[in-house]
């Protein structure tokens, strides 16, 4: 099944860019970016089997723990840094976002929106921690330890002096949501394109608030 979130991320990556994929898993996204956008890509993942899978694909990958920061990466050393659906699994998500903006010129982050109405309903009506396709785990064995909402993430960007260039929403990994009313309520998945506080030379903000 085609991952639309990968497609949307891909569309925001310039051709031939240097790309760092944090929490790259088995390298599927990176491999696609290399094939479709001819990027020079590297990945980071904490899992030995994920790193092995990336190496077997011929990818350049770094076995490491994102929560320790990106100390091994120089300032501005990548055109694009991607954190695809891993933000909520980190112990130190704010540090990682800050580090991403240090290392990359363009930061792309996708995450599940915990304020989606279905999650709110489960909590409010059933009094249970929400379970959905994007958040499929039980509360006691979920890797998703730092969930947030679209509003939360906008605030973090503000506090870190980061500029939101674009916001995109999806109903699921396979279904985009191009125009949404009140995305904090209606979007299950959000993708943010963010840059450092210095105004970007070209793109105006076109976030759908």
């Amino acid at each position, binding site marked *: 099944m085609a991952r639309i979130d990968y497609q949307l991320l891909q569309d925001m990556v310039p051709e031939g860019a240097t790309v760092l994929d944090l929490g790259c898993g088995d390298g599927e996204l990176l491999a696609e970016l290399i094939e479709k956008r001819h990027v020079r890509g590297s990945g980071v993942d904490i899992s030995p089997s994920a790193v092995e899978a990336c190496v077997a694909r011929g990818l350049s990958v*770094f076995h*490491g723990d994102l929560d320790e920061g990106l100390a*091994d990466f120089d300032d501005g050393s990548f055109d694009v840094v991607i954190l695809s659906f891993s933000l909520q699994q980190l112990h130190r998500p704010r540090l990682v976002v800050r580090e991403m903006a240090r290392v990359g010129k363009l930061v792309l982050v996708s995450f599940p929106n915990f304020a989606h109405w279905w999650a709110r309903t489960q909590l409010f009506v059933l009094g249970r921690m929400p379970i959905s396709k994007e958040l499929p785990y039980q509360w006691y064995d979920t890797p998703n330890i730092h969930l947030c909402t679209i509003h939360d993430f906008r605030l973090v960007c503000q506090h870190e002096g980061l500029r939101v260039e674009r916001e995109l929403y999806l109903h699921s990994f396979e279904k985009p949501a191009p125009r949404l009313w009140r995305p904090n309520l209606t979007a299950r998945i959000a993708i943010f394109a963010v840059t450092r506080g210095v105004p970007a030379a070209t793109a105006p903000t076109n976030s759908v608030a």
Partner: protein
Amino acid sequence: MTEQAGSARKEIGDVALATDADAGSAGVVATQYVTLAEPPAALQLESGETFGPITIAYETYGTLCEERDNAVLVCHALSGDAHVAGWREVGDKRPGWWDMLIGPGKALDTDKYLVICTNVIGGCSGSTGPASVNPSTGRPWGTTLPMITIADMVNAQALLLDQLRIDRLLAVIGGSMGGMQVLQLAVAHPERVHLAIAMATAARQPTQAIAFNEVGRQAIMADPHWRGGDYYGHKIPRNGLAVARMVGHITYLSDEAMQEKFGRRLRDIRDYSFSFSADFEVESYLRHQGLSFTERFDANTYLYITRAIDYFDIARGYRSLVDAFRETTARFLIMAFSSDWLHPPYQLKEIASALRATHKHVSYYEVDSRYGHDAFLLEREKMEGVISGFLHSGARTFGLCERRGS
């Protein structure tokens, strides 16, 4: 040393055996010898001296394909030799030092690749070294042998590759001093290799490691039988070399593994002997390790090779480590082992970061292990996946042949 049910127990100090004794073995292999660098084509050493002729001992496993581009060079560490896999003869007690990785269907698959391993020059296992006879004097070189560096070792191996008519290796792989040779080859001879795997090593020998090597050298030189290196035909400096090996051996282990294997257990005695004999198991073990080492290793070689290791700095002659890696074209796999305190992971990350700063294709992989520096000789299951994946994807990318076994 009993086997646990179901899996082969890794023993400190032992070479890891292939878990399946017959399948996957490189078989019985004979060491080959070739003499190269005959004057006037002698080898130009880093020290400025020229040296030749040089005898190189080497072993090969597998077959070269028609395009001659499926060769993998293995570089050994301080006390290694060319016998990296298989058996010297039927009934041999222990196989080659990296037998766990080399053979049909193993990480360095001899059905796909030609695997080569040489004894470094300055060594004592067949290649020219201090114990070899100087043709002009008819007597062993001893300490009159010129100083050998890692660069010299690699240049000698390049001569062998020329001799074997292998223009470009598929890969070069090694741990510890072997890892230094990997970096040296990739930097000094970029056109000779596609893939480089360096593990449990450093871009430059770290201070603490120099210190331990120096203790080993002092032990040898303080032995009255060393006679300035001129001991051939006399008693060898056995005690000095044994002590050097004991010290070195401790650096290859880990606190946790030693505690687990020996604890404070006494040898076959009920209580302290209140003397200086080997009361503790660990003492007895180290004494045995030291003495058995002297049966197969030459004391002067220990001096020369540790010196070469201590001198190693890939950035020497460059402005920085990043600069040193600028001209290399190989793809790299850099591997670290979590409990290795001789070459801790930060030293391997330094290599990977410097390579990344020059936009080279590099991967860094850390093996979680309790076995210390020796882990790279023991952790077969944790290493073979990433190594074989790296070789296979690299061969595919570069369009190199991987000969299929029949």
